[in-house]
């Protein structure tokens, strides 16, 4: 049993005024909060200084906890790998032999590509990798999908920079503090990425669905050409992400839209790489909402050409 509230002033004038004042402060505060949201349009990059100050404080704890638990997520895979080690070894050996020839061919093609680009005077910033970092946390109780990495301004990480893992794209930086940065994951519904199918050049727009999957919508209206198993890579349109970074694999179709799963699962990757924007001459995205729209528009324009 809880005792009844003693916040009853009775006939005491002073207490009555005090109670009234607390109501006034509370209502004013609540309305001020509402005003802040409307003015800032719920922008997660707002008040970046205060946010990164808190991130700096929590970084040592989440960083060291991450080091402790890393590897737990892939424990089951390691055990299964031991069980069928023999047959897997033979299969992998055959695969390595087959891949060696492919690699040699690819190296030759890359060199030819470089030569042709030089011929065309097509110069683009390709020395992209800026910093290596680890994912040390994320938003866990709100609907936005934002992860935190343990590298910040001190290592050159600035808002707008793309972040990738060896397996594929992770997202892009939206807030950067002295030693931490917040990354908008590609599964967030405000992250829109121009992509194309890896095997042919059918362009599409990849939008997050906030539940760990992405929606892949073809640029050309009509039948959805994407089937489960298709791999989507970035196009490089818009100048933010360099081309041919793996993004997602299509797993199903729902209401005429293809549903994909990111190839680099942020929950499992060990290390990520922060890259420079692909086209360095492009102005960095100023507003949180503007950048993806511009990219999408750019992709549409490129498609129309």
């Amino acid at each position: 049993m809880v005792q009844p509230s003693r916040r009853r002033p009775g006939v005491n004038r002073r207490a009555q005024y005090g109670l009234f004042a607390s109501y006034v402060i509370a209502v004013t505060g609540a309305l001020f909060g509402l005003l802040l949201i409307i003015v800032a349009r719920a922008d997660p990059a707002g008040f970046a200084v205060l946010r990164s100050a808190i991130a700096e404080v929590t970084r040592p704890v989440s960083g060291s906890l991450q080091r402790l638990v890393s590897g737990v997520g892939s424990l089951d895979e390691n055990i299964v790998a031991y069980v069928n080690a023999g047959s897997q070894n033979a299969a992998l050996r055959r695969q390595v032999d087959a891949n060696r020839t492919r690699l040699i061919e690819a190296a030759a093609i890359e060199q030819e590509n470089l030569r042709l680009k030089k011929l065309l005077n097509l110069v683009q910033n390709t020395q992209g990798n800026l910093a290596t970092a680890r994912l040390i946390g994320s938003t866990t109780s709100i609907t936005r999908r934002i992860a935190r990495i343990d590298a910040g301004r001190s290592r050159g990480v600035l808002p707008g920079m793309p972040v990738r893992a060896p397996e594929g794209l992770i997202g892009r930086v939206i807030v950067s503090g002295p030693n931490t940065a917040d990354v908008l994951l590609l599964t967030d519904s405000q992250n829109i990425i121009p992509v194309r199918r890896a095997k042919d050049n059918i362009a599409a727009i990849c939008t997050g669905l906030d539940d760990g999957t992405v929606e892949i919508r073809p640029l050309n209206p009509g039948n959805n050409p994407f089937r489960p198993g298709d791999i989507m890579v970035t196009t490089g349109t818009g100048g933010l992400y360099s081309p041919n970074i793996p993004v997602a694999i299509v797993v199903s179709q729902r209401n005429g839209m293809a549903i994909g799963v990111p190839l680099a699962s942020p929950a499992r990757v060990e290390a990520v790489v922060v890259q420079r924007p692909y086209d360095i001459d492009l102005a960095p995205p100023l507003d949180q909402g503007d950048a993806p729209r511009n990219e999408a528009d750019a992709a549409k324009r490129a498609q129309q050409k």
Partner: protein
Amino acid sequence: MTPTPQSRLGATPSRTRLMGTPVATVMFGSLIGALLPIVAQSPTLPPFGLLFLLAWRLLHPTLWPLWIGVPLGAFDDLATGAPLGSAVFLWTAVMIAIEMIDRRIFWRDYWNDWLIALVAVAFCLLGGALFARIAGSHAPFWLLLPQILWSALAYPLMVRLTATVDRWRIMA
């Protein structure tokens, strides 16, 4: 019954301890999400800061002034990554609503508390999602259902925890 502050060895707990402990636990609850190295794919953890706030408020009706939701909500917004102002508004609205309920229901029992907490958590989570939608997020509301369920299940635990901290707080 709420125990009144009683000294064990002739000393009363310091004012910092009496007033600071509840605030510190709520702030710690807000920070739990930032401290854990989890990269969640959807909202998974219950809003621990809010659960601590509700537990303290329902245990001690007169512990805090009405406007405590403003500063604690602002800290929660900054710690969880929600737009600043979202928890400021929602938490204060919850505090005022509980005050109204306290005027109607004179004696609350355990199940009343749980129901109040459940409604308050659902209100705050759905409100937060609504604010995100205003800004252009397209997260569907059903994504929050598991989180509301975890919160409802976690609330009794949080009350026990708060009560334990409370015992330490008032027993010098």
